[in-house]
């Protein structure tokens, strides 16, 4: 019933990325082959997160902001986006200290991540996502 993918499946050729730690993804998940599928799922959620983020900022709803940061960070772990995780962690610390959320850096980081994930999805074989 068990099968080791690393023993028989070739790892895909992926584009250069500054936002995703490919080595960590492979180390934690076991195969780079799964990254395009995970990247695709991440990208599908991104527009909704942006909308939610705007709404949470406009309403100054701290609970909503905290939940959203936590959710996006969880998804960033799935794609090994450690640059974004670092930015989110710092935003969480600021929030915990009672300071208002400054979203510019996070949104910029998500835009960079989006570009890299898109490149990965586009270059992956059609059946990989």
């Amino acid at each position, binding site marked *: 019933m068990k099968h080791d993918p690393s023993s028989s499946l070739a790892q895909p050729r992926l584009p250069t990325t500054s936002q995703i730690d490919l080595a960590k993804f492979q180390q934690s*998940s076991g195969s780079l082959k799964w990254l395009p599928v995970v990247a695709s799922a991440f990208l599908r959620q991104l527009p909704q997160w942006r909308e939610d983020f705007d709404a949470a900022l406009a309403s100054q709803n701290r609970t909503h902001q905290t939940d959203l940061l936590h959710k996006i960070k969880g998804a960033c772990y799935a794609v090994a986006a450690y640059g974004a995780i670092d930015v989110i962690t710092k935003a969480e610390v600021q929030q915990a200290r009672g300071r208002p959320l400054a979203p510019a850096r996070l949104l910029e980081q998500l835009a960079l991540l989006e570009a890299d994930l898109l490149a990965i999805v586009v270059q992956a074989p059609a059946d990989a996502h």
Partner: protein
Amino acid sequence: MNADFVGIGEASRILGVSRTSLQKLVDSGQIPAVKTAGGHRRLPRAAVDAVNQKTGPKALLRLFEPNPEAAALAAPQAPIDAPDKLTVLVVEDDSATSALLRSMFEECYPGVTCLVATDGLDAVLMLERSRPRILITDLNMKPFDGFRLLQLVTARPEYRAVALVALTGMGDQEIDRRGGLPPRVLLLRKPINMHRLRGFVDAHVQIFSTQASA
């Protein structure tokens, strides 16, 4: 608002079900409701509390499927977790994480059925139907979170054999603040250490195979 009545949003928080699910309960007459002059629905708090008292996996199922014939038609003809097939239920509201887990199961365990639920309530309904051997759940989900799901599952004798895994990015303090985890739950932090998860799954696949061949 009159203290004897609650809005749909408040009732949804009390019961831990989505507004859509709650709306279905109201529309099907399972919970009475009145309409305000402005057209908003208000639910008697006593009725909401009564539903909350009896809410459990089977009670929820009965509420959502009041017609036994319809329920029988909707149910699979045979349990998905048939003797030769092990089922894993992943409960995760982040589709990137669930995609990673699903990919891993499809690739590494071709004989295992991997189902995905997007919150605790969805999972409760799937638990009844699919009878998984392994339940892997995120903790931070809305409106029905992993803490509540694990409490429900561990409290039910029929789910005693289900192996439980919790996934989270939360720290220990936050987990304790939200009530902690039942004793027999394997806690894995995000990023998920897939080697550790696979070790756990391997052990259960082995047990399952031994039982199936006995």
